[in-house]
């Protein structure tokens, strides 16, 4: 049976100390996290620096969009082959605008999908939390086995937690 413990801190230094204390108590990186109401510099709490693959999403999206646009522009012109001003049926310059816009649209949509997926959202069961985190408190949260929860609470308290919550 696992248990979640949340320690609340008013000072970023205390939160960083709590993260160190958890590491010192033998909890592996990745089992605990820090929650803030505003972005802090990366590594400010000595946390595990998250890796992501967001940059692949727009490239993939642009390729999909471009392919669909080629199909749409070519198919509509071939389906109704009206010669205009002696110009070729497949008029490349006119296709470029649609190719460009559809590629960009698809890249943007896939980037947004990428941001959501890589942020691990939607998070249906967000777990233990405190509303005061968006008022400036910093939460250090750990999910561990029931028998190790006391060790985690001790580590969080050792850094001066103003409150400990369990779930």
């Amino acid at each position: 049976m696992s248990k979640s413990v949340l320690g609340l801190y008013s000072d970023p230094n205390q939160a960083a100390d709590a993260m160190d204390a958890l590491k010192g108590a033998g909890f592996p990186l990745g089992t605990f996290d820090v929650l803030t109401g505003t972005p802090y510099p990366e590594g400010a709490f000595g946390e595990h620096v998250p890796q992501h693959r967001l940059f692949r999403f727009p490239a993939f999206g642009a390729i999909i969009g471009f392919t669909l646009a080629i199909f749409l522009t070519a198919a509509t012109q071939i389906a109704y082959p009206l010669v205009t001003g002696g110009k070729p049926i497949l008029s490349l310059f006119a296709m470029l605008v649609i190719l460009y816009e559809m590629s960009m649209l698809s890249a943007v949509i896939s980037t947004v999908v990428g941001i959501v997926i890589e942020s691990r959202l939607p998070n249906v069961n967000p777990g233990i939390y405190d509303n005061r985190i968006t008022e400036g408190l910093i939460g250090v949260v750990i999910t561990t086995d029931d028998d190790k929860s006391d060790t985690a609470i001790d580590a969080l308290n050792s850094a001066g937690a103003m409150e400990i919550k369990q779930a």
Partner: protein
Amino acid sequence: MQQRRTIDQIHTNRVLLNGQLDTPKWWAPTVIVLGIIVAIGFFMIGIMVNKGLGVTGLSRPVYWGLFITTFVFWVGISHAGIMISAILRLSQAEWRRPVTRAAELLTVFSLLTALMFPLMHAGRPWRIIYFILPYDFARGIMPNIRSPLIWDPVAISTYLTGSTLFLYIALLPDLGNLRDRTTGWQNALYTILSLGWRGNPRQWKLQTVGGILLSALMLPIFVSVHSIVSWDFAVTPAVEGWHSTIFAPYFVIGAVHSGVSAVVTMMALMRWLWKWEDFIRPEHFDALARLLIVVATGWLAFTFLELIFAVYGLDAPELALRELQIFQWPWNILFITFVITGYIIPVGMWLQKSVRNNIALMFWSSLFVNIGMWLERFLIIVPGLARKTPFVYTWESYRPSGLEWFILFWSLAWVTFLMLLFSRFFPLVPLFEQKESQTFSDSIKIGRVKVPAIVREAD
């Protein structure tokens, strides 16, 4: 940032969420009045759809009038969002923070409004659905992707979709904040919309990287949209004044001029109405005015170039058009008003530091710009069509009908109405950006003076 003061996160929440948690007294009456104007406007549009375009002043040869002018005007205003949000985000300009959300929102609502004008102008809007969807299999007619009139809705739809998603992604942390401050149905709504946001380092990192990536993707779209709108005109060789190679950059820079001015108007209103003096400060208006001086002067150069290119070739029809536009009644008075309100008055004012730091004067000067910029679009579109040409068999000048004027007025009320509705449910200033700014603010001592400073994380 000279005028910053330290504000804790509880106070930031209380002040910047006052529209959602404690609705101001003026909000409901204003929304009701605007709602009535909006309803009358929709009724007018209904009359026009029912009776046909005969209720407008449009007639051959002036087949594009107030509606298309207003369409170009709102597309121009929509360039505020990406100009402010994306460019300033990419360049990490600190003063962007209170401005970005309002600018993105202005983009979304002005684009929505812009899209409605070609639909109205079509007279029977349901018959132009084939512009977007290849539906008409019975006749085998597909959208003609070679037509700029197809490029336009494709570009604007791309920009609108991208801007809306951009706005939503940047709202996620603030939706989490609203979830934490509300109860009942509001809490349920914000819980769903915030997607379970918690604010861990992964989510913040993706928020930052994603914001920069989306900004970089939206910038080329932003440039393409008004370029493509300009090609509605520029690829029409038969109309003098439209067929110009510089139209794309000319339209883009004009759009930035009017869009950023609209952001100034909106920021002044936000500061006055919601009493956000601590967050929207004179220094922000000062920075925007400096930016606008550069943009306006670049735009003036393009206006001048367009005239030079037109008259340098001594082509008789071009000269006749310019004479009509600049010297003949009533176009001459519109032209003078356009130059004075679009450039001379506002830039003359912005050159003074006292004006740049005076919110009321900035508000009025930004309104002048948009009067001028609306007239600019009118002067590009209508005189080119109204000029008497040899082979036109009917010839009438253009006098917009009362209904057209009301629909123009309706569009202003409609955008304001949408903004106010949004402000009831979502914050107009990004709270997490404000809080981040506080986290990174510091002061350093140089000699005997203490200077406010911003700490920036290395990339």
